[in-house]
């Protein structure tokens, strides 16, 4: 059960490596028990942010609170965090059991307590049979379980994950993803999870923080991020295939707004603007799965388009169209696949669209 207290709070955090500024006055509040995913392209500063929270990097400006305590200058071990790394970072010459117990032994915990915690972690992660093995004798998935176990035995409130699944193959990744989700449900810990994989982000997160260039672009529930991206970067980064973007103009006809490109006019009566817009250049975005085929009437907007390529993907099919001179992808269920070179009629509701300012890229 998520509680309302703030678990991790980052205030005005900045960090630079020499002259290169990586994080810029960043603010983030993570609620108790929340699963936050930091999502963004490689090099955007996700790991850097996580390392700051862990205390592995000294920050340049700002403060970090964990469970209400100002930990800005604390050592990592005193922050009440556990961390899981992409390369697992298991100590190669120690058995799994000793890997798990090492930090506890160093902290001088009594033997019974250590055994108890290891037994619990091993049970939760189902690694009991592996305890006496060396990391080199484990598969990638097993190694990552042990790495999670090492965070688990620390009995901490906040778990930090840095791309924990990126070194695994697709099948294992899917399995462990579910396990991490179950683990979170069971432990109710705060988890901060870094990934560049949008599927992981969408499936795991209570809230996603989409980052770019050291700045959090949007922090929201996955569905909100997906459906109402705050800017063109977020809209384009999430979703596969990517959202369709069409450059055009926003015009006012009578009391109604419409989006115009070439000789096409899309009525925007159903679109919920953020604030009263002004006429001018804009970008129209529409997700491929929000477009329907051959549906005849009933849509606020319909048009005919030429099929360029059809890509069957099993459960559904991608259709690459030309709408006017613009490229446009549509995702439909497999039964409704059109033939190549057909001319098809498409329809959608602009309610589901996203409009962006052509200059700033911000949502209109």
């Amino acid at each position: 059960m998520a509680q309302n207290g703030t678990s991790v709070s980052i205030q005005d955090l900045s960090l630079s490596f020499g002259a290169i500024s990586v994080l810029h006055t960043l603010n983030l509040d993570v609620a108790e028990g929340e699963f936050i995913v930091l999502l963004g392209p490689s090099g955007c500063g996700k790991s850097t942010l996580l390392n700051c929270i862990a205390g592995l990097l000294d920050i340049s400006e700002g403060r970090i609170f964990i469970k209400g305590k100002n930990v800005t200058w604390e050592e990592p071990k005193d922050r009440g965090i556990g961390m899981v790394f992409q390369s697992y970072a298991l100590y190669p010459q120690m058995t799994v059991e000793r890997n798990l117990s090492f930090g506890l032994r160093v902290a001088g915990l009594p033997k019974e307590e250590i055994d108890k915690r290891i037994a619990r972690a091993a049970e939760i992660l189902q690694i009991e049979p592996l305890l006496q093995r060396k990391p080199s004798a484990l598969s990638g998935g097993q190694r990552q379980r042990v790495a999670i176990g090492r965070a688990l035995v620390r009995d901490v409130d906040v778990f930090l994950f840095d791309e924990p699944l990126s070194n695994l193959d697709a099948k294992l990744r899917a399995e462990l993803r579910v396990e991490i989700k179950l683990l979170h449900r069971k432990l109710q810990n705060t988890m901060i999870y870094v990934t560049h994989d949008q599927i992981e982000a969408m499936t795991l997160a209570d809230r996603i923080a989409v980052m770019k260039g050291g700045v959090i672009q949007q922090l929201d529930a996955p569905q909100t991020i997906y459906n109402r991206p705050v800017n063109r970067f977020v809209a384009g980064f999430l979703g596969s295939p990517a959202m369709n973007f069409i450059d055009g103009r926003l015009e006012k006809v009578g009391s109604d707004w419409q989006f115009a490109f070439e000789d096409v006019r899309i009525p925007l009566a159903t679109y919920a603007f953020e604030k009263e817009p002004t006429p001018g250049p804009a970008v129209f975005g529409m997700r491929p799965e929000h477009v329907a085929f051959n549906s005849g009437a009933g849509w606020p907007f319909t048009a005919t388009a030429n099929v360029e390529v059809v890509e069957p993907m099993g459960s559904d099919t991608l259709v690459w169209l030309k709408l006017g001179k613009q490229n446009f992808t549509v995702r439909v269920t497999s039964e409704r696949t059109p033939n190549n070179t057909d001319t098809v009629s498409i329809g959608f509701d602009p309610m589901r669209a996203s409009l962006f300012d052509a200059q700033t890229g911000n949502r209109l």
Partner: protein
Amino acid sequence: MTAGQITAIQPVQEAQDQAGVGPIGPKPRRISAGRIGLYAFLVVAALFFLIPVYIMIVTSLKGMPEIRLGHLFNLPSEPTFQPWADAWLHACTGRDCNGLSPGFYNSVKITLPSVVISIICASINGYALTFWPYKGANLLFGLLVFGAFVPYQVVIYPLIIGLSSVGLFASLPGIIIVHTIFGMPILTLLFRNFYAAIPVELFKAARVDGAGFWRIFLHIMLPMSVPITVVAVILQVTGIWNDFLFGIVFAGRPNWPMTVQLNNIVNTTTGVREYNVNMAATILTAAVPLIIYFVSGRWFVRGIAAGAVKG
């Protein structure tokens, strides 16, 4: 763990923060005792490495009277390059007083061909071992690696006898052959490891294109071998230039390399010891490898590391 606890903590924290206290911004970097100790250790270590050479340089620029005063660390009061000139042209070994320069030219005559020949041999070895391993080739390679660990003393006498029987003992070709032999194990290893890291598809594609042993070597492998060749050249030039044992045994008196001449000049027991000349001679002998070291920088380290990955 509960919300209650948190609210219990937070007001205190907030009060602190409003008052502007509490950690904020970068953790203050105290210049810790550890950090000072670290630099102290490094600086003392650096002095240990530098002082001997400092002494050499200042002494080589002093006149003998000043040296006898015994102020070892002082800078020369009247710097003179006379000792350097003497070391190069007039220093004596026994009866000959031609200085180090003949030794220098001998070292050049020994080093250049030895380096070229040994690298050519080793690169062909490495290439053949990687891409054309014939039956028994790996046994040969094993023997060669074994040779990298063998004390030279076990092989020297048979080599003396062998070279004498073909009339090459105590001659320039003789010493060049000896350097090629003793450079072969480590260089072959170096080249083999380098070629082993090249994708074998490249070799296969060339075979499909109809190229044979030599053509693949000359047109495909050699052009790719520049970095490893640079490492090998550095390794060999410094190694052969610095050699003393093979030079004194195999080169023959007229061809003695610089290191042998230097040792003879310095450890000659007759006459007054001219420390300034001796030190100048020593610096001159060390100059070539030192220049290579400072010019090649990281390549040099890489050469050591590469040469060190035995087995």
